[in-house]
């Protein structure tokens, strides 16, 4: 055992939320763990696991109304119980000894004050320095977190910085007063993969340099594996496993941890079916499925050919202002074979989603041709397009936004059939809708329910069923699994794979996640700034990337233990 007492110890923490009719729901169910001084502890779990609530409880930032912490809970920081500390004491600790970094850097910074002002404010609050000294210190901090031209950045406003830079500012603010404990709540989730890696390196370096303890909260086990000393795995408000990082990755004890580690696609493997949590919870042993071979074959038939597609966004300023246009997709060409999958990867803003929308004519393309079995879709009149529209369908990213919240599932599924004259009457359409619902793994009685009664994964299944009712030949999946938890993501990926095998669908799989794209794709197209930088067979591309940007993307994929981050901060 550790002879020195831990910096922070959470004892039997129990947090419940009361909704408007007074029903309590326990978000954290009596958890206990320690954070030793100078160590990094990672809190890992899927959404609803209570990890963020725990972090907020430590800093007492949970809302005062409707939230209840059980009386026998204790959070000891340096021997003091934070749950009984006075407001004054708490204020001294927050920002001083305990600092926080949040998920959304843009909204977490006050938009109307300059970056410098917000750092100076913290410094002057907790240390006895004058404004001038605080200014000098703030510049030094901005330099330390790796912002270019820190002098000039001092007077910048948050909206003038990129997401990564904003998060660096948040980190500078957090370490300003040399905290003993830094709580980072999903600090990289809102950022692109390459930026995520940079921020993680920065945090690791700062942790070593300042000797802080870090509580790192994340949904991504691979990510924390690179960084943490200890890992706490949470599920549904309780701790499933708490062990040193090596043990978690090499000899996980808890079935849930095992499942979390396995159900995310890996670059090195491509099983015919991804394992899901259920495979590990039962008594039966999990058997490794055979690997799947991918890649376009010589006898494949072309279903979709895109030639030199360009999409421009126009913006106007006022009645007499000039027109501005920006090229979102620039000269992209590719072919999709029948029954195959083309993966499209790139970071946010690279034009991959716009490309998907332009193919369906949901977004006007400027130049180029989209040949669907030889017919140029972009040249068709709206009337001619109708029939083609049915054959190419799209599943969107956000399962909470892509279903009309006022429609029942039956309405959602029968509307496309009604519009395209599938099924002869309402009764038959309802029958077909039920069939499709069962096809995607939902019970027939779900027809009478409304979207808000389903979880994210279930909604995505409904969205897929809506497309299937029209018997499409091509399905565009626009980040369709990105918003889902890893365990649900595996299930939906398995469903997509099963549907392709059964119905011979061709997929355009758009994602920022290279591992997921590799799992599902025969060919992969890498996009940057609207251009295609590399297009190759999946296996070739991942084994021997040609373009430096592709290599950069591949390097940024979190690999988990033992690919530890080597701090690169001076």
């Amino acid at each position: 055992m550790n002879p020195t007492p831990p910096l922070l110890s959470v004892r039997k923490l129990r947090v419940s939320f009361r909704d408007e009719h007074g029903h309590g729901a326990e978000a954290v169910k009596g958890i206990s763990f320690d954070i030793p001084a100078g160590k990094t502890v990672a809190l890992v779990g899927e959404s609803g696991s209570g990890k963020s609530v725990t972090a907020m409880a430590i800093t007492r930032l949970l809302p005062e109304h409707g939230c209840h912490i059980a009386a026998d809970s204790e959070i000891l920081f340096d021997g003091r119980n934070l749950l009984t500390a006075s407001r004054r004491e708490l204020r001294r600790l927050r920002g001083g000894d305990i600092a926080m970094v949040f998920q959304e850097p843009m909204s977490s910074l006050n938009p109307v004050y300059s970056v410098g002002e917000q750092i100076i404010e913290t410094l002057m609050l907790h240390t006895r320095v004058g404004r001038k000294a605080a200014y000098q210190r703030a510049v030094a901090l901005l330099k330390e977190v790796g912002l270019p031209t820190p002098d000039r950045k001092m007077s910048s406003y948050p909206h003038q910085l990129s997401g990564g830079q904003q998060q660096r500012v948040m980190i500078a603010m957090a370490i300003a007063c040399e905290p003993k404990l830094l709580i980072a709540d999903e600090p990289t989730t809102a950022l692109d993969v390459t930026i995520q890696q940079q921020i993680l390196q920065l945090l690791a370096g700062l942790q070593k340099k300042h000797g802080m303890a870090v509580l790192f909260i994340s949904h991504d086990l691979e990510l924390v594996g690179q960084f943490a000393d200890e890992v706490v795995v949470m599920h549904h408000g309780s701790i499933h496993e708490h062990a040193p990082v090596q043990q978690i990755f090499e000899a996980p004890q808890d079935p849930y941890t095992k499942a979390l580690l396995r159900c995310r696609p890996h670059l090195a493997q491509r099983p015919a079916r991804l394992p899901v949590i259920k495979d590990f919870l039962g008594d039966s042993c999990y058997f490794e499925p055979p690997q799947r071979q991918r890649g376009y074959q010589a006898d494949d038939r072309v279903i979709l050919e895109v030639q030199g597609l360009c999409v421009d966004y126009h913006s106007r300023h006022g009645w007499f202002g000039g027109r501005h246009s920006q090229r979102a997709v620039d000269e992209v060409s590719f072919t999709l074979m029948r029954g195959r999958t083309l993966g499209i990867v790139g970071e946010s803003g690279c034009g991959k989603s716009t490309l998907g929308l332009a193919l369906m004519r949901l977004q006007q393309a400027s130049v180029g041709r989209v040949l669907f079995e030889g017919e140029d879709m972009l040249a068709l009149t709206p009337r001619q397009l109708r029939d083609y529209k049915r054959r190419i369908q799209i599943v969107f990213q956000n399962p909470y936004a892509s279903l009309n919240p006022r429609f029942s599932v039956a309405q959602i599924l029968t509307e496309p059939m009604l519009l395209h004259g599938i099924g002869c009457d309402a009764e038959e359409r309802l029958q077909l809708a039920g069939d499709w619902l069962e096809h995607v793994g939902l019970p027939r009685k779900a027809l009478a329910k409304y979207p808000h009664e389903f979880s994210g994964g279930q909604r995505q299944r409904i969205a897929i069923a809506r497309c299937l009712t029209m018997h499409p030949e091509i399905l565009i999946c626009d980040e369709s699994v990105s918003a889902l938890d890893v365990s649900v993501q595996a299930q939906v990926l398995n469903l997509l794979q099963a549907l392709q095998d059964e119905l011979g669908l061709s997929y355009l799989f758009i994602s920022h996640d290279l591992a997921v794209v590799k799992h599902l794709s025969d060919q992969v197209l890498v996009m940057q700034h609207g251009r295609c930088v590399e297009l190759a067979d999946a296996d070739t591309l991942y084994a021997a990337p040609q373009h430096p940007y592709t290599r950069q993307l591949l390097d940024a994929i979190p690999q988990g233990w033992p690919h530890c981050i080597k701090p690169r901060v001076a």
Partner: protein
Amino acid sequence: MLAYIVRRVWQMVPTLFGVMLLLFVLFNWVGGDPSYILAGKNLSAEALAGIRQQLGLDLPLPQQFLIFMRQVLTLDFGTSWSTQQPVSALLHSRIGPSLLLTGSILLLGTVLAIAIAALVAYLRGSVTDRLVTLIATCAMSVSALVYIIAGQYWLAFKGGWFPIMGWSDSTLDNLLHYLPLPLLLGVIVGLAPDIRFYRSCFVEELGHDYVRTARAKGLSEPVIMLKHVLRNAMIPVVTSLMMSLPYLMMGAMLLETFFGIPGMGKEVVMAVERSDFPVIKAITIYIALATMLFNLLTDIVYKLIDPRVQLH
């Protein structure tokens, strides 16, 4: 900045043209033939024809519109039909009292409402908060007419603390003697809705992530409220101030009518009663111009409050 202002002023042209078109359609087309009103009892054909010729009503409509446009551009609206005074001279003498009254109500009312709203938002959920919200809701429901009638009756007629009505030529006399009661009533009428709205602005801002950051920094609640939240909440507050101008104009109109203040509002009411079209048209054009200028001013104030706003 200057280029922006020039461009914005240039953009007012179509709007002003629209207002002219609206007024023209209203008064020269929908409004029918005003010569019947003017002729009074002398409804002889010659008299009517004379009046029509005098007003240019015998001209084709496009030509009449051109005449109206010239009037607007030169800000010379001819003479009032009822008093035969030049309209521009009449209105110039009316602007001062109106500005004094509405300006003071706006200033005092806004400062008071923001202060109370910030306090109540800070105490959100408490008994004080609920009480103030409830009182404000009830106070809002009483017609402005009732406040003015009751205020004038009890505070001036019965209480004798204020003059019942009147206005003098000396600004000092007006400020000390005649202004206080209309000002008080004007502020009372506007206070309740403003408090409710500003409170909701503050409470909404309090739910944002940057407030959580400010708390995580260890700032105290009053500092968070006064430094971080107030400036962000000013953005919707300034918008509502701009939007409240029409209501202020309405309130001032009643106040001016009740207290005999010779302002634009009173003039409008009298002009509508007498069907004095030139005066109504002139006042509408003047107020529309003022509203447009005020909108421009609001946008510039936005820029000062919120660095994200780009003037282009």
